[in-house]
Every structure is written in C-alpha cells, then in structure tokens.
C-alpha cells in the first residue's frame, strides 16, 4: 500500500513513518508539511492511503480533503485533541488516530483502510465530513476554491454575491469571479442565514453589500449592491430579505 503522510510537525511525521515502516506491505511515498503540499503530492503521487493531520497552517485536514474531492485517497485522520472532529469521525466511520499513537492501534487502522480499499467502500463525502466537524450552530467562515491550478481561501466577508452557473457556483468578490463545483442548495445550508440570503433561484446575496431595493415589475425586484451591481430578486427572496432587514 502506498502511503502519504501529512503533518506540519517534523517529529509527528517521523514517529508515524517509524511505526509504519515496521508494518508489512507499506511503502511511504511522500511526506507533506502543510495542506498545500498535501494537495499537490496527493495528486502527483496518487497514494492509496493518506495520514492527515487536522490542525495545519493555511489549510486544515478537512479542507485538504474538500479540495481533493473525488481524487482523495482513503484517509486516516490524526489529531492530538479535537472534540468536534472526533464526533465527525464517529458519525462517518472514517478511521482516526489520537496522538501519540500506539502501534497496535495504528496497525488496526491500516488494516481497516486496506479492507476498505479491497471492497471499494465509498468514503463519506468531504463536504459532509467537514460540515459535521464544525461546532454545532457554527456556519461556514471561508470558502476554498481551486482556480487555474491555484488554491484560493476566500473569507466569507469578502464575497459580494454568489451566482449559480450550470454545475458551478461563481463567487463574486471585489469585481473578480472565482468558480467552484458545488450546488446552490448545498452551499445555502452551510452559510449563516443572517448574513447570506438566497434572493433568487440563481443568486445568494451578502446582505452587507445591499444598497437598496428597486421595484422592477409586478412581483419582481432588483437588488442594487453598493458597487452598483444589479441582481434580480424573486418574490420569496424579497420576503426573506425583508424579514431579515425589516
């Protein structure tokens, strides 16, 4: 089995490698010290299994998984302590290890991963996993987008609005557009409903950017943003927005 180790601490990588080298049929093909490297190496090396630390600079383990999407290998998470993450693992039955790791526990986790690979059991979707790793009642704080080979971390407060385009969502921020493959309804449930409102089948608006609302026709309105952009608004969207801003 070809393995990739991801952890931002050198010592944590070295002890994992040390234990793994004692197991049969394991080949460590690479080690990554942060989330960006992890995404790059996972795509280049195409490993069977990835040991993924959760707290890392720039990108967390969950975010690495989200970016890899369907290309993600089987994953065993490792963490020192994270109550929310632990619950996410339990719910979705992905294996996880608590640092420091005991060798027998590690061997069992590797065995389980091998089992999963043989049976080709589908892993839980990365979005599902990262959503349940968020503390309850806590909405998404930033969006990860891969655009032209680069990873963009987009904090929500920079987003003006989001537009649905075929299978993609287009995020408008400061005059620029970034595209991501995701559905509108999925994103809508992850956003804070007091900050982002779906004003139309194809538009979600950052309420802070709203300058005024113009009547456009019977049962249709236009949302005018502070930079002058005009977005269509449906009747239900108008009602939702009215409820929020009074």
């Amino acid at each position: 089995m070809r393995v990739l180790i991801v952890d931002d601490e050198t010592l944590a990588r070295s002890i994992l490698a040390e234990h793994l080298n004692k197991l049969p049929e394991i080949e460590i093909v690479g080690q990554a010290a942060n989330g960006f490297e992890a995404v790059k190496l996972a795509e280049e090396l195409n490993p069977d299994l990835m040991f993924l630390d959760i707290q890392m600079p720039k990108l967390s383990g969950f975010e690495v998984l989200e970016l890899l999407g369907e290309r993600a290998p089987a994953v065993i998470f490792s963490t020192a302590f994270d109550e929310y993450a632990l619950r996410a693992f339990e719910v979705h039955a992905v294996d996880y290890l608590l640092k420091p790791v005991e060798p027998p526990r590690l061997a069992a986790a590797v065995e389980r991963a091998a089992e999963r690979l043989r049976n080709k059991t589908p892993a839980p979707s990365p979005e599902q996993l990262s959503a349940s790793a968020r503390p309850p009642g806590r909405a998404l704080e930033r969006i990860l987008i891969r655009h032209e080979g680069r990873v963009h971390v987009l904090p929500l407060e920079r987003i003006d609005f989001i537009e649905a385009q075929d299978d993609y969502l287009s995020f408008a921020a400061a005059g620029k557009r970034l595209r991501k493959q995701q559905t509108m309804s999925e994103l809508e449930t992850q956003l804070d409903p007091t900050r982002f409102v779906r004003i139309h089948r194809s538009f979600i608006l950052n309420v802070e950017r709203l300058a005024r609302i113009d009547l456009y026709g019977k049962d249709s309105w236009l949302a005018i943003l502070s930079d002058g952009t005009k977005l269509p608004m449906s009747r239900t969207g108008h009602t939702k927005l009215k409820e929020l801003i009074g």
Partner: protein
Amino acid sequence: MHPIFKYRRRLLLYLGVWVVFGLLLTVVFVFGGNAPVAWSLEFAVPVAIVLGLQSLSFWYVVQAMPPEDTPVPRLVVTWAIAGLVSLIVWIAIASAWAMWLLPEGEVYPESAAGLLPLLVFAGAIGMSLAVLGHYLAGAFQRSRNAERRALELQVLAREAELKSLRAQLDPHFLFNSLNSVAALIGNDTQAARQMCFLMATFFRKSLTLARQQAIPLAEEVSLAETFLAIERVRFGDRLRASFDIADDVKEVAVPPLMLQPLVENAVHHGVAHMLEGGEVCVQARRREGFLELIVANPCDPDRPPSRSTGVGLVNVRSRVETLCGHRASVDVDAGETAFRVSILLPAVSSHATS
C-alpha cells in the same frame, strides 16, 4: 415603585393585615366609644385600609434614610414630621368619610366627638407599626442582597481559577508534546530527556506560580521561555522567539500567568498558522513609573477565526484590572498580518508587595 406592588400575593397579605386592624378598631369603637356596630364597621375598615395605603409611602422615607448611616436626631425629627403630616391627612380623610356615611339631614350625637382621641391614638399606633415593618423588611432585603453578592463573587473567583487551570492544561499542548517525546525516544534519547525536563519544569512552575498573588516579572519570563522551548521542539525552525527585557524591570511585581497565556496565543493563533512560521517578540521596559510589556507576533490574514477567541486575553485583562485597578491598561492591536498586546502596569517592586 414600592416593591410590594411587584407581587399580588404580598399586596393582598398586606391589605389583609390592615383589614384586621380595621376590625380591631371597630371593636374599640363599639366597646370603648359606645358606637353602633354597623356604623363602626362601615367606618373603621375602609379607614384602616386607607391608613395602610398611606403607610406605603414610608418606604421612600426608609430608602432615603437608611438606619445605619443616618444620625439618630435626624431620624427622630424626620419621622415625627412624617408621622404627624400623615396622621393629619388621615384624620381629615376619616372625618370626610364619617360625614359621607351620615344620612342626609341628620347629625352625629355629641358623644361621637369622644371617638376622635381613640382614632388619633389608633392611627398613631398603626403608623408606628407600619414604619417598624418597613425597617424590618428593608433589613431583610439588604441581608439577602449581601448574601447573593457574596455568592456571586465566590462563583466569579472560582470561575477565574478554573479558567487559569484549563489554560495550563491545554490538551493540544499536552498531547502534542507527548507525541514529540514519543518520536524523540526512537532516535534521539538525549533530546527526549531534555523535552521531559522542559515539560516537568513548565508544569511545576505554572502550578506554583498560580498560587501566588504577584510574582517578579523575571519568573514569568522564565516560564514563557520554557513554554517556547517546548513548542520549538514541536514546530522546529518555524517558531522563533526574541526576548528584550530591561534589567530595571525584572523585579517588578506582576500577576502570575499573565505573560504565558499571551505567548501561548501568539504561538497557537499566530505563528502556528503560517507556512514559513514567524517570530514571537516579548519586550519589557520601564516607562515613567510604569512597566510596559509587549507581546507581538505575525499572523496569517486568511487564518480561520479561532474557536477560543480572546478567552485567554479576557482572563489576563480582568486579572490585571483586579490587581491594579484602572491604573493598569491592556491594549490589543489586531492587524491583518500582525498581532500585538501591550500591557501597562504600575511598576511596583515585588519585594515591596511581599
């Protein structure tokens, strides 16, 4: 507003007492003044209730003159005047009520005038009891409030203690450090031993320091250095630290565990989120009779919002304030790419306080 109006049951009970007073007054009128029973009842009960309602105004006098810090002569004079005014008003109302009860064209017999002294006497007694009751209720209320405040203070102190204990026992720090030790044992036993010593020193120091009121800054700096040494084993070259502590502030008294949580924040919310790492700078110097302590670190503009936003900082701020009052200040400068906390404390030597 009078507190009795807040609870209907209390008000009803209070008026009930005055109805009983009215019945007693009736008995006095019938047997002591030879008045007819029906008339006495009709006259005395409403008049007693009026006296009760009038007496509620004494509450404001009690509030204005708490018995413990009002001179006795003033207390006596005020109550004499208040009582007299209240009594005159009441007698006037009672007389009007008596006239109203009189059927048209009739007059009271001359013997009725004998009831007036009885009325004045009963009114004076009723009012005196009301004043006493108000003082008793006030004292009861005050003692209950004092009890509640003492309890609140206790809870707050306990909470602060718990928070500082939790801060010392940060699970990430503990488990990650143990993981480092486990890793080092395999190939660098000397370094593994060194890490165990550092951890023992850190936990021992933070336990003993936490029990003290104030400690010299030098001890706090040494704790922060131990903490950073442990974290440097984990983070390697990514974590750098610089200390610039002026010699003339090393003995200044500071609250224990004030610097350590700030350095911890600088590592976990600052440097740990940066790919290339960064430097935690600790600076201390004397400025016009004050100790100025600065902890600065770079941070990543895209970092996820921290889960424990400012808990450690709030704790430090409240403890600095309880120790030095408003002569101390804690300033936070949170920029996009840099974070800086500066604390200003009156520079008192630790030898002077202990």
